[in-house]
């Protein structure tokens, strides 16, 4: 992860070692998105090595999703440079999958048809998803339609669909936010296990500090709109819950976000 210094310049120091830029799975430099006069995202730079999870956290409506859309190739109108696995973002890339907040499942297709969609679009054999389906515990619900599935099952179907094309990078926009607390933890653990097994580089947008600390090797804190990087934190407590270090980290992130919010209020008052 390239930490971002004040002013937005790069320090190509990754986890304490000097690594060549080519080894980065994700590299975003100075990403800026404007909608007319409005600046939605301002000068964001971040990067990740293969198999790392970058959790992006920030106030709702700050432009987190816009960042993800740029990485996914769904928003092509941005300034700055984005390299994903050495290539610029584009729709329909084989090596990249995305899971959006409401899962984007097609209600008129069964769980099985939804899962196989990516492979079908590419005209590939869909029998290879069987192992994935089994691993995600979906064998029982393959013939059901999305509206017959529970929140957790829908989430698993979305994960299965994203993973069916064997991507090397996964982009997720608040994928667990619609789940109840117990299911959420269960899904976070399931995802964490699969992500580590497959060495999937992941960008996770979330508004939950707890989730960011559990899943993210790196936590990128964004300011209120326009989205700017407030801080990049390396998280040594990844995969743990209620880690003592988490408490200190979440305190400092909360302070950061609160300070940013107050600044916004003060600016508005001026």
């Amino acid at each position, binding site marked *: 992860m390239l930490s971002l210094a004040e002013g937005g310049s790069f320090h190509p120091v990754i986890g304490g070692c000097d690594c060549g830029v080519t080894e980065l799975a994700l590299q975003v430099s100075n990403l800026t998105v404007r909608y007319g006069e409005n600046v939605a995202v301002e000068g964001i730079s971040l990067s990740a090595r293969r198999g790392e999870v970058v959790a992006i956290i920030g106030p709702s409506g700050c432009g987190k999703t816009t960042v993800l*859309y740029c990485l*996914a*190739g*769904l928003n092509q109108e941005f300034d700055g440079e984005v390299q994903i696995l050495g290539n610029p973002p584009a*729709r*329909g*890339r*084989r090596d*990249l*999958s*995305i*899971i*959006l*907040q*409401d*899962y*984007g*499942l*097609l*209600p*008129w*297709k069964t769980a099985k048809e939804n899962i196989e*969609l*990516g492979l*079908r*679009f*590419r005209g590939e054999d869909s029998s290879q998803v069987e192992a994935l389906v089994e691993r995600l515990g979906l064998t029982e619900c393959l013939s059901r*339609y999305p*509206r*017959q599935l529970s929140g957790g099952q829908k989430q698993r179907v979305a994960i299965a*669909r994203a993973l069916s*094309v064997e991507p090397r990078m996964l982009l997720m926009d608040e994928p667990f936010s619609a789940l109840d607390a117990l299911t959420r933890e269960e899904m976070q653990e399931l995802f964490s296990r699969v992500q580590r097994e497959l060495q999937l580089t992941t960008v996770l947008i979330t508004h939950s500090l707890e989730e960011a600390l559990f899943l993210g090797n790196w936590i990128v804190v964004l300011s209120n709109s326009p989205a700017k990087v407030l801080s990049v934190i390396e998280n040594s407590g990844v995969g743990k819950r209620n880690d003592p270090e988490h408490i200190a980290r979440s305190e400092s992130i909360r302070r950061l976000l609160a300070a940013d919010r107050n600044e916004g209020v003060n600016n508005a008052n001026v």
Partner: protein
Amino acid sequence: MPMSKGYQRILLPVVELVLFWQVLAMILKTPALPYPHEALWRFIHTGELMEHTWASLWRVLRAIVGSAGLAVPLGLWVGGSKVVFEMISPLLYLLYPIPKVAFLPVIMLVLGLGDAAKIFLMMLVIFFQILIAVVDARKGIDKHVIDSIATLGPTRWQLLRHVLLPAVLPRVLTAVRVSIGTSLAVLFFAETFGTELGLGYYITDAWMRLNYKDMFAGIIALSILGLGLFQSVNWLEAKLCRWRSL
């Protein structure tokens, strides 16, 4: 004996309707309203009625399929692009409420007295109903769904086949169902001109001959035609949109 729900839905209202008709005929006592059994008898024993029914059905079917074939792609195009929508939709909403039947003379002058003019008139009516429904349905498709499917790399055709068409299909069928009544009314009107085949002609002809039993036999045939079309759309919806009724 317990009746199945389907039977109850069809049979019960038919019995009620016939009863109401019977009572009304008894009260009015006019040749213009024959008793149900008289009309039914004529309906069953008039061989030529079949021919007229087929002619009408064939016209309606061509009009519905033709309208849907044009309105669905156009609706997807208009509803799918903000620029196109803003340019074209004011025109659509202006044209939609205009009573198209009034154009029959013009249409007949241009297309002649044959089937083409009758089908075109019905299409004018059905087309706008389906078009408006498709435009609204296309606009209503959740952008997130399209976005997340787009990242799976579909071709334009795949996006159409797997996402856009299934998404608008329920609304198309509802629009077709609604327009069946209107299109039969338009058909009835159109068939009174330039043809000697079709239920519109049959009913008006019987009326002119003051043969009210024949006239009601024709009305029964037209009603069964409408009911049959309506049920066919219901059946199609149950088949094609199974996911909605779960």
